[in-house]
């Protein structure tokens, strides 16, 4: 056994008391601060639930065709959605999708600026990178419990946990994409007197777009990977079905809902990837980088 050098109990008490203090004094404020997220989530959820099922299938199938220009993907998406409906998972799928979309949108709004700033300032990258590592490796329960203490069980802590877990790849890939922009093109832009702003919006972001899209794809996937854990604290949706299946030893319920998550993941993965490929072809990146 490792010898006890210091007594960690005071340290632990200090952390626990600190959290309690935060809950008592800042709880309301933090809850108010998170309310726009909740509003967005509920708004998306209501919108999707109010939309007729056939319209959603039509829209997503059309989107899949637009993204890939191939009937195969459109057929796959259509078939997957019908599967969800037939298996009685429609409403839960919508709830899960709403959570995933809200988390992804929030991640896009926050991660892309952070990624751009990281590409620009090396010191910022040195600070943010370990934070991202922490966000990805820290077991989610460790921050879920304080989040539940602050916000109470429900959708908000579930959403926050999903955002924390799903954001890092987008930050990393935005940073990478910006830094990988062809230095010759950047130099040409500089030689013509482009301002930093003109370079960012005219050159860096458009050329980094395929990489950024890959980051968005990763974010959606990781957000879906969080749904079971998120449902433990009241997010509902497919994850809740899985949880109930496990709790009641109803293997079928868990299996079907689990398959539902996989089907959702496949739909969003293929559609975002197809968009990324289309963009990459339009830019012809492979050809100009050789």
């Amino acid at each position, binding site marked *: 056994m490792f010898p006890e050098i210091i007594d960690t109990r005071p340290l632990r008490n200090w952390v626990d008391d600190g959290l309690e203090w935060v809950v008592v004094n800042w709880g309301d404020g933090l809850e108010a601060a998170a309310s726009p997220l909740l509003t967005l989530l509920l708004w998306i959820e209501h919108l999707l639930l109010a939309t007729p099922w056939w319209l959603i299938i039509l829209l997503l199938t059309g989107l899949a065709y637009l993204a890939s220009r191939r009937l195969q993907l459109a057929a796959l998406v259509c078939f997957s959605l019908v599967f969800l409906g037939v298996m009685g998972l429609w409403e839960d799928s919508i709830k899960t999708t709403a959570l995933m979309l809200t988390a992804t949108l929030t991640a896009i709004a926050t991660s892309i600026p952070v990624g751009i700033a990281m590409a620009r300032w090396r010191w910022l990258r040195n600070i943010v990178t370990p934070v991202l590592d922490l966000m990805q490796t820290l077991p989610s329960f460790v921050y879920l419990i304080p989040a539940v203490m602050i916000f109470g069980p429900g959708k908000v802590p579930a959403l926050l946990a999903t955002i924390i877990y799903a954001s890092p790849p987008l930050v990393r890939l935005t940073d990478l994409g910006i830094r990988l922009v062809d230095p010759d093109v950047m*130099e*040409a832009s500089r*030689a013509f007197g482009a301002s930093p702003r003109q370079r960012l919006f*005219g050159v860096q972001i458009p050329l980094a777009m395929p990489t950024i899209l890959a980051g968005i794809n990763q974010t959606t996937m990781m957000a879906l990977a969080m749904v079971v854990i998120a449902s433990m604290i009241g997010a509902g949706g497919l994850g809740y079905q899985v949880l109930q299946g496990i709790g009641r030893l109803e293997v079928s319920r868990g299996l079907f809902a689990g398959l539902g998550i996989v089907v959702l993941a496949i739909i969003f993965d293929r559609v975002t990837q197809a968009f990324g490929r289309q963009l990459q072809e339009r830019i012809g990146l492979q050809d100009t980088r050789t």
Partner: protein
Amino acid sequence: MSEQPIIEMRGVTKIFGLDPQSALEAVRAGQTKAEALANSGHVVGLNDVSISVQRSEIFVVMGLSGSGKSTLIRHVNRLIDPTAGEIFVNGEDVLSMSREQLSEFRRTKVAMVFQKFGLLPHRSVLNNVAYGLEVRGVAKQDRLDLASQWIDTVGLSGYENSRPFELSGGQQQRVGLARALSMDTDILLMDEAFSALDPLIRSGMQDELLNLQQTLHKTILFITHDFDEAIRIGDKIAVLNDGVVVQTGSPGEIVLNPADDYVAEFVSDVNKARVIHVDSIMQRGEFEPCDVSVQAASRCEDVLPIFAEHEWVGVTDDDDKQIGRVTSKQVIAALARYTPASRS
């Protein structure tokens, strides 16, 4: 020198590394490029370079890779800041410009063409050519009109909506050239603009540049590693070796009197027919008009094919008045005379 030079660099030194200032002192004290690298890890890009480029001339800086030529051209629009020295463009001190003044200077005074083209892959040819004007803030319709005119001039009509990656290397560089020309600046910087192209395409582009120059009269600073190219297009050539200008002069001067062994080595491989002008070897005087004639500024290589059909070739001045004539014998004698002893 009657007129103020358009581009002037005085004693420009550029040292890359952690502590350029201390390395600068060592270099000024006589340390060579190799010593600086070995002693302190500093790379001497340019060492006390002075050049001056006159209005409407094509000034070629020629050197092998690592000689500092690309570093040199980037000092003119301050893509690189020098460690020491002075740089004037149109009499303006480039080094004292603020960030805003520098942007304005790049937007309005100098345009640049790059070895690797530097085109925006996500934009059409038309929008690539219009890019510089867009940065300058020219209204959309105006810049697109101008851009399509220049696309026409460089012979890319019909490709306006293509993407750069759909074009060949030569076509891509035409886009780069059109983008620079559309800026309508007096000064054009060309950094190994034709080096990435196939030999045939390259000589086509050289001809085209010379053609355009006859109407545009721009001040062009041209970088190349190809001595033949330097001789072909340059009004004046500076030869750069290890960051030092070893010789500056007209192509003829350099070919006839290379300053050192380094320059002599390039000269030995040169196609003399390209360097020697007919007016330096012709018979001056009044003769009966010849069937075919060339301008006095023509080179021997221009008249050689004519001898297949004709015995005499007339030489005319700028007003197309015949001022002399040449025969094949004179040309052959001239080419043989200028061949170095080592070759004969």
